[in-house]
Every structure is written in structure tokens, then in C-alpha cells.
């Protein structure tokens, strides 16, 4: 009998030990932090300083403190609210949704999923949104680095941020032909929370780059006086607090801080970055109605396909990159903007790894040329509806060598769309390609 109790006790001890290990093991994982944009640092140093010179290390703490006081941490995101209630950033990003997407993966009492970004996005796009998550090196193309503020597939023209609908669509439908999955089954509120978190990471990343770009010009002067900044911190919003204090008794210190913040936050963040994000819906490129012949036929009519082919080889010059066969084998030695951002720094030669080793060490991903799309396969990253292809041709694709085509009339763009739609079904060899292109469907229509 005593033996039985001993056995029970000892097995209980083992179980208890395991349980304790599991519980404390979870606690010991440090919460992740935003990674500083070291690539931008190295770039600014190489652009502005002598080869062996570096920016003072004190700047790291200053940039970090400023970013944290304005945007918080991955577990506790914050919005600056520089202009209080009517803050333009608050109109772009909802803090409530932000908090649903941020933090560790969990759920609350109502069963609402939290930590969505880390559950679905962070393994590729990274905690910081730098596109350098653990899986990044295995993927082509690399996961998007949000910090440049550039998006490829959107309804707005080049150099304008995407609309919320564009971002919702990318999350819902994924990007065919890339590793971006389609999150079809996520509930609406979770997708919207992720959209806000992506905008948050983007604006934070753009602002960090803006601050770092400012550093070489300071010539050793501090970016911000941290002591003053910290003394203004206990209030939820630095600006509100200092504004209230200034009303009662403006000390010289507070006036200096106000001026500093006006430049650092008001100008660099709000005027240069947030404003770009404010009126996106007005910038949407309207797609003009297509010619009636295109819409009524099951397959693109031959005359439109022929017209599009002429433009492909001529005026629109698609042939230069997509190749004479449309297989994407034309100009293939271009890089996208995310690589060019540092690859174009003087002294960097893509053929010689030593010249950019310091960028790789700072966190840049090895450069890989961007592949022009193979148009013989009907897979379209930005969507395969005619309106999607129209926008890709008319507006170009941000961050890639694919240019916008302001010289084409809407009718000409539709002709190129017709050719692009016909290409996957066109015969490459064995007689007249134009005659082979329209198939059963279009013959039926022309027969009527």
C-alpha cells in the first residue's frame, strides 16, 4: 500500500514539475520590440559622411524614444494625437482596431481574437513591418516592407497611398503568384483591424526614415532634448500636456520643446506623411467604360487584340521588359524600389558583395532582380478583372519598373488590356497567331 502512494506521489511530482515548467516557460519569452531601421542609418552615413565615419550613437536612443513616445510598442501601440480630438491621424487609424491587431496572440472574454498581426502577418512581414520576418528569405518576391510607404496593387495613382478598400482586398484575395495568402475566412472586423495596423506600421516606418534622414544635417546637435521630452511624458499626449502648461505659464523650456515638437512632429510627421494619407479616396483612378465591342464578346475581338499587339511592340513599349513573346524575358536586370532604396547608394555595386556587405549586416535582404510578369500565364497579381488590368497599365505598379502610361488614350489602354487577356490563349507557333487567338466563344458571337 505504501508503495502505491509513493508511486502516485512521485508521478504527481513529475506532472507538477512539467506543469510549472510550461507555465513559467511562457512567461520568460520577452515581448518583441520594433527593430530600428539600420539600413536607413547605414545609407545616410554612406550618403553624407566619410567612409569610416559614423553617426553618433546617442541618436539611436533619441530616435527610439521619440518613436516610442509617439507610436508605443508592439504590445501597446499608441497614436500621437498631436492635434487632440480632431487629429488627422485618428481619422485614418482607429486606436481600438489597432489594439485588436497588436500584442500577443490571444482572445478576450467575448471570444474576440487579439494579436491578429502576429497570428497572420508577422512571420513574413516582421514585427516591425520591415518585410524581414523569419520566412522572408525563402520567398519570392520578398514580403513587402511597409516602411517605404509604397504599395503595388491599388486603385490610386503612383505616389499616392492605397485606399482602405485596396488593402482589404489584398488581405481578402491575397496576391496570386506570390506567397501572400487569401484570408477569405477572416471576419470583417479582423480584416479592418489588420488594415489599420498595416497603415500604422507604414506611417511609423515612413516617419522613422524621415527622422534618420534628418540626422546627418544636425552635425552632432541633439535631435530632441530627451530630458525635456521625458518631463512632458506622464500625460497621455505630449502635445496636449505641453499646450495646457503653456497656457498657464510658458517657461523657456516648454516653449523650446513646443518649437522642437512643432518641427519634429507637426512638420515631419503630419505635414509630410499623414497628409498624404488623408485624402486617398479622392485620388482613385476612375476606369473609363470600355468599348462596347470588348464587353459584348466572350473573348477579345481580333481587331482589338491586333491593335493591342501593335501598341505592345510600339508606342507602349511593353516588349522591352515583358519580351517579344510576352514570357517576361525582356529586360530582367532591374530591381524594385525596396532594393534600389539602398542599392543605388554611391559605392554599391550589385556585382560585388563586398561593396554592400554592410547593408546586409544592417538587415537588408540580398538583392534579387525583379521579374517582369509572364503574360502567357493568366495569373494576375493585382486581380484579373479587366478594370484591374486597366489600372495596372494606366497607373503602372508602384515600386517596380512597370511605368504608368499617360501617353496612351483610354481606348489604347483598353486595346492593350484586350491583348493581355488574349495572350494566354494565343498560339506561340504554328501559323498566324492573330487568327488562332479567338477561340470557340468569339466565333459564336461573330456568327450571330
Amino acid at each position, binding site marked *: 500500500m505504501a508503495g502505491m502512494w509513493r*508511486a502516485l506521489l512521485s508521478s504527481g511530482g513529475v506532472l507538477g514539475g512539467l506543469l510549472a515548467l510550461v507555465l513559467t516557460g511562457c512567461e520568460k519569452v520577452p515581448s518583441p520590440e520594433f527593430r530600428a531601421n539600420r539600413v536607413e542609418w547605414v545609407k545616410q552615413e554612406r550618403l553624407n559622411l566619410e567612409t569610416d565615419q559614423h553617426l553618433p550613437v546617442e541618436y539611436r536612443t533619441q530616435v527610439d524614444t521619440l518613436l516610442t513616445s509617439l507610436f508605443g510598442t508592439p504590445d501597446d501601440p499608441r497614436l500621437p494625437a498631436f492635434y487632440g480630438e480632431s487629429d488627422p491621424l485618428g481619422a485614418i487609424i482607429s486606436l481600438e482596431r489597432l489594439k485588436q491587431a497588436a500584442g500577443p496572440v490571444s482572445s478576450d472574454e467575448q471570444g474576440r481574437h487579439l494579436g491578429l498581426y502576429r497570428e497572420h502577418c508577422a512571420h*513574413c512581414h516582421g514585427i516591425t513591418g520591415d518585410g524581414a520576418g523569419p520566412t522572408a528569405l525563402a520567398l519570392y518576391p520578398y514580403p513587402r516592407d511597409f516602411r517605404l510607404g509604397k504599395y503595388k496593387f491599388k486603385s490610386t495613382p503612383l505616389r499616392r497611398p492605397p485606399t482602405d478598400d485596396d488593402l482589404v482586398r489584398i488581405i481578402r484575395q*491575397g496576391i496570386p503568384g506570390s506567397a501572400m495568402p*487569401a484570408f477569405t475566412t477572416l471576419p470583417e472586423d479582423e480584416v479592418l483591424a489588420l488594415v489599420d495596423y498595416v497603415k500604422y506600421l507604414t506611417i511609423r516606418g515612413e516617419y522613422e526614415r524621415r527622422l534618420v534622414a534628418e540626422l546627418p544635417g544636425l552635425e552632432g546637435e541633439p535631435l530632441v532634448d530627451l530630458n525635456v521630452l521625458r518631463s512632458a511624458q506622464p500625460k497621455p499626449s505630449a502635445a496636449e500636456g505641453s499646450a495646457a502648461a503653456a497656457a498657464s505659464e510658458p517657461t523657456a523650456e516648454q516653449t523650446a520643446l513646443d518649437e522642437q515638437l512643432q518641427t519634429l512632429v507637426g512638420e515631419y510627421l503630419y505635414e509630410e506623411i499623414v497628409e498624404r494619407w488623408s485624402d486617398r479616396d479622392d485620388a482613385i483612378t476612375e476606369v473609363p467604360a470600355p468599348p462596347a465591342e470588348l464587353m459584348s464578346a466572350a473573348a477579345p475581338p481580333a481587331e482589338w487584340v491586333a491593335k493591342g499587339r501593335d501598341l505592345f511592340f510600339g508606342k507602349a513599349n511593353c516588349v522591352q521588359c515583358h519580351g517579344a513573346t510576352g514570357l517576361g524575358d525582356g529586360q530582367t536586370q532591374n530591381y524594385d524600389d525596396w532594393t534600389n532604396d539602398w542599392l543605388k547608394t554611391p559605392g554599391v555595386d550589385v556585382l560585388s558583395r563586398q561593396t554592400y556587405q554592410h547593408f546586409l549586416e544592417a538587415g537588408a535582404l540580398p538583392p534579387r532582380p525583379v521579374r517582369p510578369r509572364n503574360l502567357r500565364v493568366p495569373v494576375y497579381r493585382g486581380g484579373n478583372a*479587366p478594370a484591374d488590368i486597366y489600372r495596372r497599365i494606366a497607373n503602372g505598379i508602384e515600386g517596380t519598373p512597370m511605368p504608368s502610361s499617360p501617353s496612351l488614350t483610354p481606348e489604347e489602354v483598353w486595346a492593350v488590356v484586350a491583348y493581355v487577356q488574349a495572350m494566354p*490563349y494565343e498560339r506561340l507557333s504554328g501559323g498566324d497567331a492573330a487568327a488562332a487567338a479567338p477561340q*470557340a466563344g468569339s466565333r459564336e458571337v461573330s456568327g450571330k
Partner: protein
Amino acid sequence: MYRFWGLLFLAVPVVGTLIYLLAMLGIAPFQGLGLPPNYNEAGVEIDHLYNLIHVIMAVVFVATGLMLGGLIWKYGARQELGARYFTHSNLLELTWSVAAAGILVFLSLYQLNSWAENKLERPQVEIAGRTEPQPPLAKVVAKRFGWEFYHAGPDGRLDTPDDVYVENVLRVPHGEPVVLQLESRDVIHSFFVPGLRLKQDVVPGMQHFVWFKATSPVELEIICSELCGWGHYTMQGRMQLVSRADYDRWLSEQSPWKQFAAEGEQE
């Protein structure tokens, strides 16, 4: 003490069988552990095979469990016996090899017909006076990480410009045999519709065909059951079973130009 361990091992087959029965009968809290409802005509046969294998396993499981528990109970307390070791017994080896082989041979012969019906003999149809394999209703392209569906358009053929492309939601008619063509864009995936008892690996570079006859207008889950990368879990699709009339109406409305047609009507 040894009797305690005997009882513990004896509890394994008893509790296991109890939970299995409760699960198959749908009694709480084990109601979700059984099979999901079946909506495929051929699925009845597959469920039968599934249950048969479970019965065979249950017999072996309960027999070995009872034997283990019973022997511990009977001999465990008699410590004076000590342990007796032997390294080989031809009779034992032969018995369990032949028994297991017999079960496997029986199963493989027993399921030959359902294998042929579900994997080899694609439904036949009359096309222009000749009997041919039924053409696929849609092409399913598996990719990391999602499903692309290309429905044969009004011309009834795949890989033509009138194909209708949809992502992650597959509409198919119920009450008639449906053939799907499966392809992969990158790595091995597996097209799995538990509600239809349908599972087929999708190997890059190959064309696979699956067929089924769904019985009711329900919405089913499509999942990938071959680990294909970190986003494997997002490869969830929906299969909406609709009536033939609804399917035809839906297909005719799927012009890629519908966005502009709608604008035209408004004006």
C-alpha cells in the same frame, strides 16, 4: 500495487471503447469527435469502409488491452516468479504476421470496387454520339496559400478565354455527377472536402480528376490536407452546392465586364 497497475491498463480499452461509442452516437461531450455528415452518394460506401476498419481495430485494441490488464492482474503480484526472457518464437512471429497480412489482403480486396468507382472510373457521358469521360466542370488550382477555381464558361471547355475565375469559393451543382480537374502551381497540396469524403493529393505537373454526386444544397469546407508551408492553415475554401438552375444562372452572370454593364444600366 501491481493490481492497481493492472486495473489502470484495463481501464484503457474500457474508457477508449466507451468514448468511441459516445462519439459515434453523438452524445455530449463527445458529439464532435465522429465523422461530419456525409453529402456524397459514394460517401456511404467510404463511411462503411471507415467503420469496418474501426471495428477491426477495436477488436485488436480491446483484446490486447484486456490481455495486458488481465495478465498484470494475474501474475503481477507473484513476485517470486521473476521475469522470464525468451528471444524468439517462430510460431508467434508467424501468427501475428500472417494474421495482420490476412487483414490487409482482405481489406485491399474488399475495397477494390469503391477504389475503382472513386478513383479510376470517371463518369461517362455521350458527346456527339460517342461515350467519353465527363469533361470537368471546373479546374481547381492549388497554390500557396489558397485555391483558384476556373469554371468552364458557356462553351463548356476549360482553358478558353470565357473561363470564369473565382478565388476560394467553389460553386457546384448538386444532384448530378460533377468532375473537377486538379492542378498545383507550386508544391504538393491535397484537396480535401470532409463533407464529401473526398481527398486527393495535388501534385505539381500532374492533372488529377475527382468526381462526386452531392445530395443536398449545403455549404461545405474545403481544406488542404498536405502541409505545404507556413500558410497551410489559411488554405481554407468553401464549396457551395446549389441547384443546376442556380448554377447556370450564376455562371451566365459572371462576365468579367459586369462591373461596367451595371454602370451602363444605371445610366
